[in-house]
């Protein structure tokens, strides 16, 4: 990739612009030029996404732009991944099952975290709002998740968060799935009290925690 700086710059710009079609076309051009998918991913996609995430953390760009960048990257990965799979490699940092706890239907904060995780290379399964503990667990099993991420803005949803940990302990799966929590009604003290493996106070911190929990 270093020998094709113009493709690298154009691909980065397509991600920043949220231009999915242009991004996919440029990814194909890069492959056609003989570049390895991992090289494209590591040297272009990852640093550009980090830039997008950093700018969002500083509120220099906003959620819609970040979501569009994430969409562009999905299209780019759709081009790169078949080649990677053929080489028995994966670009994903891990799988995160995310949702808002039962009783809570707020989604803006969860959308921010979901998008930040996606642009940082995680495969994210968003279960939506008002998710019962058993639904989290079922999805984590089915998708062989590395991390379960639970968002809660309402204090009355917190008993359901506790239920999830009780369920994981009862089934012997506590530790098999790492659980991180965040949202307006929780803090690090609560996270420690219930035995969460991680707590993220905002979307940027959620990425750091997810990386740690997924061992990346």
């Amino acid at each position: 990739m270093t020998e094709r700086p113009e493709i690298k710059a154009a691909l980065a710009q397509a991600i920043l612009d949220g231009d999915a079609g242009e991004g996919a076309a440029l990814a194909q051009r890069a492959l056609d030029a003989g570049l390895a998918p991992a090289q494209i991913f590591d040297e272009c996609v990852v640093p550009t996404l980090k830039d997008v995430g950093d700018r969002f953390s500083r509120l220099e760009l906003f959620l819609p732009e970040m979501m569009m960048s994430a969409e562009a990257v999905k299209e780019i990965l759709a081009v790169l991944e078949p080649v990677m799979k053929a080489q028995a490699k994966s670009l994903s940092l891990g799988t995160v099952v995310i949702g808002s706890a039962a009783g809570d239907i707020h989604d803006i904060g969860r959308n921010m975290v979901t998008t930040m995780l996606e642009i940082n290379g995680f495969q994210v399964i968003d279960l939506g709002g008002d998710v019962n503990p058993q639904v989290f667990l079922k999805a984590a099993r089915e998708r062989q998740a590395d991390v379960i991420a639970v968002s809660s803005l309402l204090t009355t949803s917190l008993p359901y968060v506790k239920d999830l940990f009780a369920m994981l302990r009862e089934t012997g799966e506590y530790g098999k799935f790492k659980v991180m929590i965040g949202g307006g009604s929780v803090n690090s003290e609560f996270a420690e009290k219930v035995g969460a493996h991680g707590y993220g106070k905002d979307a940027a911190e959620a990425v750091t925690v997810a990386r740690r929990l997924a061992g990346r």
Partner: protein
Amino acid sequence: MRNTSRLLDILDRMETGPLTDEKDFDMKHIAMGVKRVVKEFGIKFDGANPVNTDDDMADRCFRAAVKLVAEGGAYCKSNGRCLRWTEREILEALDAAPNVLVVGADHEARTVVQRRPEDARAPQVIGGPLGGLVREDQYLATMQSYIQEPLVDMLITGTLDTVYGRDPRARSPWEILVGWHEAELALTAARRAGREGIAMFCVSGASSDIAELSATSYGGFRPTDIHMVAMISEHKTSYDLLNKATHLVKTGSIIHAYCNTIYGGLAGGAEGIAVAETAGMIILQLIYMPATHAGATYHPTLTCNTTLENLWALGLCLQALTRNTPMIVDGVNSPAAGPMTKLLLYEVAAAAVAYTASGAARLMGPRTEASKHISHVSPLEARFMGEVGRAAAGMSREQANELVKQIEARYHGQLGGDVKGVPFDEAYDLHTLRPRAAWVAMYDDVRDEMGALGLALR
């Protein structure tokens, strides 16, 4: 105006509107739609002036919001359908919005009226923790302390952190108990304070419909209280929320609706959240038929609304609505800092001046420390908010802008640090229910500082 036939019309629209993918609604209608109307109507924040002084900008914000609502409507999460209205239907519904109502009872009755930008009448004060968590063992004392503040016209209750020592659980019998316990304790607090008739915003513990439906019944909160229904950010509702509205219409209760737009979220920056919040309040009037409305735009990580962008955005929204409709719109005061810090009082003052000059009918809160820590509230900041509101009444927006700039400079860039204050029992003496001397001294210092800036508090 509200009645059963209008309620049926809303419910019909909810069931027959176009099926819409939620992500499409978020991206095409909110994100792209807001961006489009912001550009079309030339809404612009200069980054330096926290109070809009341009009437034409306020009117353009209103027209942008009406267009946004006419194009995309509102989304019902329960059935995946959009509720839609034509521009004419929107304007007709807004014209019929009440501009006066009476809340509370006996000598605590208050007539609430629309205020407009630069209105000489002082805004009323809705004091209380605004849904923030309050320790159950101190709930009565905390509410009584707010109610006994003379400037507090109405109470907005806090949320019980436990009920009979147990964790409340959404959509369960525990939530019903929370609603009832909130009513029992708040009504007792009012009696103890000698202000039994004071109107209360309720039910703060109603995270779903069941606590509202149960506690707004015989022996619970009264018809003279004010019942809150929220919108889900951005521009969404659900069966749960419409259950509340339907129950409140049929019980003849006073409805107060609110929405909170997130800065940096789907609506984008300051200009986008100003338009989205204005549109949100229009939708509230369309779907819940409330008597009054409250707005707040929140910073995504600080969860306060006292940054320059948020002060400007909510102020513009207040101006847009009160210049172009009869709606009664309140301003939520949501500082990041906690009790017994000067930063808290600076934030409260900045928001109170900005929203008073922009036409807020009532100042609400403060939502101290952005409700991050249990019982980190004290009624002294509600008193201070009311004093600032009185002093700022009749002020021109140009004066308010200069004043807010000077006040904001005192906390600018500091809200991301350690701004945690102290809990209620450290700020107040639990026996006398009076603020502690150190907190009063801090308050007096800041009052003097405000006086030096030309804001004469009384």
